[in-house]
């Protein structure tokens, strides 16, 4: 099928196999390997990307579902050589160890802050409940979200 979509802010048109997993399309066809595969069945959140402003699992999505939509992957967050506030906050708060979960975690948080710039602790918890981290624990991640939310509102 002919797929029309926006990739990290750039319009794209491509001939694709609509039934291919979006995760494979992103990693193999687009060459964007920041999005990771953990479980492949919706449990770990490592494959999280943003479709039309919402966090979704790319492992549970077919590429055709992207048609007419707007896709953001972790690679799209850095703008003009500068990391996104969430990425900076993760570094500042040491919310990264092996890093495998981080792109999915950051995309979940990006979607949360777009909708809700000042989330409560409970809202943060709900937003990242589907992102499993085996290393860091969630305290640092939650601190990073509060840091990012504060930095974002200062920028405004």
């Amino acid at each position, binding site marked *: 099928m002919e797929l029309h979509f926006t990739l990290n802010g750039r319009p794209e048109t491509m001939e694709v196999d609509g*039934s291919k997993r979006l995760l494979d399309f992103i990693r193999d066809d687009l060459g964007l390997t920041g999005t990771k595969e953990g479980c492949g069945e919706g449990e770990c959140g490592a494959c999280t990307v943003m479709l039309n402003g*919402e966090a979704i699992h790319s492992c549970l999505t077919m590429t055709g579902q992207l048609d007419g939509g707007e896709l953001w992957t972790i690679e799209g967050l850095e703008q003009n050589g500068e990391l996104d506030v969430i990425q900076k906050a993760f570094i500042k708060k040491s919310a990264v160890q092996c890093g495998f979960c981080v792109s999915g975690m950051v995309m979940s948080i990006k979607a949360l802050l777009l909708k809700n710039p000042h989330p409560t602790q409970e809202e943060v918890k709900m937003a990242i409940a589907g992102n499993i981290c085996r290393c860091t624990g969630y305290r640092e991640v939650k601190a990073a979200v509060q840091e990012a939310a504060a930095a974002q509102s200062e920028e405004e």
Partner: protein
Amino acid sequence: MARTEYLQPGTLEDLKNLLPTLPTNTAVLAGGTDLMPQIRTRHPDYECILSLWNIPDLRVVEETTDGYLKIGAMVTHAAAADNHLIRRYFRGLYMACSHVGSQQVRNKGTLGGSLVNASPAGDIAPCIFLYHGQLEILSQDGSRRVDMDEFLFPDGKTCLQQGEILTAIYLPIDKELNSCFVKLGSRREVTIAQISLCAAWKNYSGKPEVLSAFVGAIDRRPCAFPNPGLLADLLTAEQAAQLLADQIRQIRLKRTRPPKLKLTEAEQLYKERAAKGVVYDVVELIGAAEL
């Protein structure tokens, strides 16, 4: 292997026109949160995928002139939890949708997908039974509406035939009706129900009268709670919990085939004990709604 054809109509009209042309080996794709894991484990060789993803009409929630709330089959759990009409008239459904899986699952999983997938642990079906909902089914021959009882059979199978599409859920609006939904599972935020309970009640001169209640995840399809009136009062909560534990035990003893939900002995016993937890949660919610 031949490439799987991917069809994604943009309107209901286009969908109707496609139905007679579909190969028998076609899979319907809604959000994909159940279908994709199934494809991954079973490797079925689908000739064609029919995606409902881009049909705006299937995502509408609206009041009908004859007193129903029509919820499009492609409304996601997140959209349902955010919808003011669902929140106002069907609080139990709103509560169920707000706690399906994780945010990613709620953003993609649909109410229609949940009903057609018909997992015994699904959170949506008990609510549709509770509200006496009807389902709209589209086939080559046109559209029809069936009661939930006719849609989901006691053996857990649905009445949908190959090439039929669930297009909407109709829930009768009763402005006096209040409702709630609770579940207990194995992980706090991302929880597939081990047991769920929803109840609907009305207030008569300041006192709640529980009209009906349904239990999910204890049998192949949701079961009516034997004596819903007991849920109205903390004084009868213990009796209600005992009744539910007995019901779970009877279902287990009556079973001749292995359960669709494969549970260990310990998990089964957990379920009987969890009955008490969901009963007390519901009784408390009904009590709190009074204040």
